[in-house]
């Protein structure tokens, strides 16, 4: 059973842009709006090196990762050849101008994937910001 929950208005997302949706646990979800006002939701994490896809340039039904320019399909979350790898997608629909995501998915999906780390905490293994900690896999 789906439990659709309103995230924002379509107009809250810039055309050819994205917004980040915070989750209680796990990496953010990125919601994208393309040139034809279609809305897509992906884990905000490039399958290549974990770049925040929400910060990339959106075109057609793709987004270019801001870190290394890998092109990820917004519809399937998968990198375009010759790159490989996919990022998890989230069910997403638009109703009366509202963007809806599945609350169940938000709470459970892809919690085992962590954001990349950089800086002194990453290399020296010191206790870093809690959001950088690798989280335990979660059954779906």
């Amino acid at each position, binding site marked *: 059973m789906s439990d659709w929950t309103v995230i*924002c208005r379509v107009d809250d997302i810039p055309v050819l842009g994205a*917004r980040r949706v915070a989750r209680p646990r796990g990496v953010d979800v990125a919601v994208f709006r393309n*040139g034809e006002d279609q809305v897509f939701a992906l884990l905000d994490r490039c399958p290549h090196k974990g770049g925040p896809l929400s910060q990339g340039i959106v075109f057609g039904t793709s987004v*270019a990762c801001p870190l290394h320019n890998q092109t990820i399909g917004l519809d399937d979350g998968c990198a375009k050849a*010759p790159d490989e790898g996919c990022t998890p997608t989230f069910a997403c629909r638009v109703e009366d101008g509202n963007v809806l995501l599945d609350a169940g998915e938000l709470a459970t999906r892809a919690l085992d994937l962590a*954001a*990349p780390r950089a800086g002194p905490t990453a290399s020296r293994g010191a206790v870093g910001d809690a959001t950088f900690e690798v989280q335990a896999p979660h059954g779906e």
Partner: protein
Amino acid sequence: MKKMKLVMIGNGMAGVRTIEELLKIAPELYDITVFGAEPHPNYNRILLSPVLAGEQTLDEIVLNSWEWYEQNRIRLHAGRKVVEIDRVRRVVRADDGTEEPYDRLLLCTGSNPFILPVPGKDLQGVIAYRDIADTNTMIEAATKYRKAVVIGGGLLGLEAANGLMKRGMDVSVVHVMPWLMERQLDDVAGKLLQKSLEERGLKFLIGAQTQELVGGDDGRVTGIRFKDGTQVDADLVVMAVGIRPNTELAEKARLHCNRGIVVNDTMQTVTDARIYSVGECAAHRGIAYGLVAPLFEQAKVAANHLAQFGIGRYTGSLTSTKLKVTGIDLFSAGEFMGGEGTEQIVMSDPFGGVYKKLVIKDDKLVGACLYGDTVDGSYYFKLLREGRKIGDIRDRLMFGESNLGDAGHQGQNRAAAMADADEVCGCNGVSKGAICKAIKEKGLFTLDDVRKHTKASASCGSCTGLVEQIIMFTAGGDYSAAPKKKAVCGCTDHGHQAVRDAIRANRLLTIPDTMRFLEWRTPNGCATCRPALNYYLISTWPKEARDDPQSRYINERSHANIQKDGTYSVIPRMWGGETTADELRRIADVVDKYRIPTVKVTGGQRIDLLGVKKEDLSNVWKDIGMPSGHAYAKALRTVKTCVGSEWCRFGTQDSTQMGKDLERALWRMYAPHKVKLAVSGCPRNCAESGIKDVGVIGVDSGWELYVGGNGGIKTEAGQFFCKVRTSAEVLEYSGAFLQLYREEGWYLERTVHYLQRVGLDHVKARILDDHEGRQALWERLQFSLDGEPDPWFEQREALVDTRQFSKLDAAAQEA
């Protein structure tokens, strides 16, 4: 909907490539039928020479297997020759009576070898060198016979001779012209080639004119008699004296032919728009190309029109040549013979077997002929294609690219010496071996192909030269870098200059207008073209074209540098590198307040706060209270300074003040790429002015200006530009230079590459010789910068979308 019928006549490389391109973009549009005269699927004709030489097998050179035709539902009539095209009924008929109707017809009949019209040409053992059957005949002959004669000392003839020799035959090459490969080499290089081939065991009869072929009683050739009465024995005669476009069928169908089937820029025959022609049989602007890269370009254009996309034009190709005889390095391109109105630079070392000739016309390289050392072939070919002025590098041109400053990572000369395991593309971790393997196994010929299949050179592009060179010696003589002009990206066929020109000439003010006007292929471009278009618009029409934040990289959209973990670095601007206790105190407070993990001094004398979360960016800027450093942008970054005459015991000029003045005059200046300046107070050059886009060095009598320095991927020392007396002149000359770069540079082209393209003389003419022009440039720059907002403190004016900094929260919405 009923599918249209596409019939292709000829099953060669150019034709099948067209079908491949067509299937990629319009897979459902046609029922496709192919007629091929040879009883084989499509194979790589270029690799027949290695097959003859025993280096590869026939199976290995098949490009599209029988299964490929089946999988793509293409009906292949192999071994059937089309003998008639009925243009009224729109039906083709093959020699066995098979008929196929068509809506569109693709003529790819290739070319026929030219056979000398001498008596005895029909004897057994006399063949041309064109297809698998010829190759098999030669391989078989080599097992039974001893003496072979190849008529024709061109590219193909020499490859045939080399192959037969490797198969154990005693081979003589007959060549009527005064030296070998006269279409590709001059006399000196031709004779060097002959010498090294003789050392390998080939014999040559130069200037010999064939009178007739002599046969024995069994009807097989036994020798050749020449016009001067001499004679040589031969059990096998291979004629490789040239090819002719095969237009027999087209002429019968009354299509206009003139040294090939005449086609226009869309590859349609001029006679019948339903009929297309690509490949060696087609004459485009009077040229029938015999190299594979131009043919593939043609295929792309034809496919685009067959798919009814209706955009894309083929405008011709420049070609270069390389011989595929292992161990012999020769390269030629363009007008290598020279001639009237040209100058030549020649380097000749016959003992060492090295010869190089560069042909120059109107200050541009127009031809090159290299023998023995061809590592710079791709570099010269690039210069040729770009038609850039070479006046400023003329004295070093002969020594190749590695001698134009520090070779850095570009490494044009490294390709040949590299081991298979060596990394070529650092961005994507692609080794030389992986590239070579892909080229060989997948039959790649163009840079685009290699990028698509291996990802090499697809990111930062700094290894492009290296990759081109690898293609050149792996794919051999058939690599040529068509098309003449590089498109901005896959969304368009237009190059950067064409886009710039169109925006200016047609007063285009928005990205959608520009895309519509230039018939972009994609609805909203891609991550490559949109930032370029955005820059061209705002630099061409300041204050009129509106900036589009969604067409900027994230660094410019959020006015901070994205880091590998998705956090940002913030660099406040410190004029000329000077700061105060107050500023330092504020920076320290911000570091504490936002728990910023790292504080670092940059190479440009600024303080970098690393690890700022995006949510905090707005407040970090506000709390720091210093102007934006633009250290994230394709814009003016820093003006680095030394302490100068104020403090330094050697200082001749107040470099810190000059740096502050320059920075205040130029900040907020967007440019094709990042721009860095430096001012040194004396020639000791402590600010490292020699490797900056504009470097200023104080001397007793004033200031010296250097331009086009670069400390990036390829380290380049700046070139001396001029000397001026006053600070005001430093501002005006530097500003005018940067404005010219802003107006003429291509997006992501550093000043050094811009200067390489247009030549330093051009820039000098515009700024040093043209007093009014210089002032106008300086004024245009000031006009563009006047009132430009600081993105950190005037967010609305700078069109910063502040929504990006906050996160959405599902729970909050529900409440």
